[in-house]
């Protein structure tokens, strides 16, 4: 594989939240083009890594982003909205669409001044959203809310998309649809994807980074990782099934996930 230029680089990034040391020196590089999958067990620090890029949690170490003009920006010390305006889109773990706003208002809100707004592209990908544009987002199903969250990403011209568990809690059919849309988006924009569903990872990831206990324990080609069941099991606690089915191939049980999610949301509040 030819070396693509780096887009996002984290070096020795530490995050401490209310007494716990969550990231303990993360080093990773996302190269321009393709999809980099950020993998790891629950509580390994995937979401915190994404949040540290956006400045949603305070971090130490170095986080650098190379913009479209080739200039490299240090992200720490910038406010979240300034980071985003460099061309970084974010779809958070729990979608976080604005339930009290209509679908159309959710999209209008996402329009950024530094970018053109591609409402046509979004409605082309998700015709359902156009039909429901006057509906309150809070009354949408989980899958439809995820479409709104992804639509917000694709509305603006971005250099990098940070997508955190886009298929979480979705029915298999919707998982496939979301994966389709992201795969199409990946043709134009680089994606850093946090994903537990290894079928989705297999489908689109070019690179993979595995974190465990706040550190990067493996980085390399995603197909190479998934081709090695022993290593996958060792790193993620689950073996990749070879198949085309989507759905239940996830890296850990729902019960632990619930637990970690509640812990994380409190950490999120602290950093919010």
């Amino acid at each position: 594989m030819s070396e693509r230029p780096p887009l996002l680089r984290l070096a020795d990034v530490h995050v401490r939240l209310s007494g716990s040391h969550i990231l303990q020196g993360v080093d990773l590089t996302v190269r321009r083009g393709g999809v980099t999958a950020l993998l790891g067990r629950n509580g390994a620090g995937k979401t915190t890594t994404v949040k540290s890029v956006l400045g949603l949690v305070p971090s130490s170490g170095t986080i650098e982003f190379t913009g479209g003009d080739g200039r490299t920006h240090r992200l720490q010390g910038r406010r979240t909205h300034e980071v985003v305006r460099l061309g970084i889109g974010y779809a958070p773990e729990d979608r976080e669409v604005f339930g009290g706003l209509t679908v159309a208002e959710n999209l209008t809100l996402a329009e950024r001044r530094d970018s053109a707004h591609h409402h046509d592209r979004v409605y082309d990908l998700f015709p359902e959203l156009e039909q429901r544009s006057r509906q309150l987002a809070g009354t949408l199903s989980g899958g439809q809310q995820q479409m709104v969250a992804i639509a917000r990403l694709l509305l603006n011209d971005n250099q990098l998309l940070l997508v955190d568990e886009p298929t979480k809690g979705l029915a298999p059919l919707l998982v496939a649809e979301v994966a389709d849309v992201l795969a199409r988006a990946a043709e134009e924009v680089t994606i850093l994807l946090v994903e537990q569903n290894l079928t989705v990872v297999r489908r689109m990831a070019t690179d993979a980074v595995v974190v465990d206990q706040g550190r990067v324990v493996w980085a390399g080609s995603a197909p190479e990782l998934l081709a090695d069941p022993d290593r996958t099991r060792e790193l993620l606690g689950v073996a990749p099934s070879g198949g085309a089915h989507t759905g239940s191939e996830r890296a850990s049980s729902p019960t632990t996930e619930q637990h970690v999610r509640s812990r994380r949301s409190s950490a999120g509040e602290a950093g919010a």
Partner: protein
Amino acid sequence: MSTVVLLTVTGLGLAALYFLVASGLSLIFGLMGVLNFAHGAFLTIGAYGTWWAAENIPGAGATGWGFVYAVAFGVAVGTLVAAVVELTLIRPLYERHIEQVLVTVGLSLALVALVRAVWGADPRPFPRPELARGTTSLLGANVPNDRFLLIATAIVVLVAVLAFLRFTRFGLVIRAGVENRTMVTALGIDVRRAFTLVFAIGGAFAALAGALGGIYLGSISPGQGTSLLIFAFIVVVIGGMSSITGTAVAAVLVGLVQQFANYYAASGVGDLSVVLLLAVVLLTRPGGLTARLA
């Protein structure tokens, strides 16, 4: 019958005052998570600004358009002070809510003390434009006109705020920010600009309430804002902390309960009933009136 009419209209007039103070409080709390104790000081500043302008600014006066200019001046000063407070004292403490509340506590003490230092602790007679001095006969009751002035102003403000929130981009940002401030910044929006804006809007409404309260009570004193503030807080909590319509409903409820109980039971009982109302609402619906409408 005429007593009931008079009490109702007076209660609604009081509700209008509460709404003007509480709407700003609830916008500020909803968006920023800050309970603004300095809001009473904004009210006092608006009242004294109006009073001062009526006496000292050429063109402004105690009646007619002159009085309108005086109120405009008072509101402008209140808005300016609120915006400056946000920019210089609240913004640097971004997301540090307890410290922000403490700063507003210190400000509420200092600003009111400053007004007292300049104009004394005694009440000052407030100009009453001729429009507000008369009475109107309504269903057999002679209702003082100032009540209608208060109610009309509050309705205009309510409609204007709702329209602003519904139809402007800033309004959209504020509505979204009330729901999820963090996500708004993650969409590339500098939510702090909305913070300054809601502070300025809240300051303007509080200052307007100060001027109208001056007409209603016939005089102004430095401590007036603080005593109104407590009832405005109660209105905000009953209304669900961050909902404008909820605040409007709660203001009407509180104003009417207070008037009727003060008249039919004894003076002071109305104030106590309002506190009881707060306790009942919080114990039965801890999120306030609008909690279940969400």
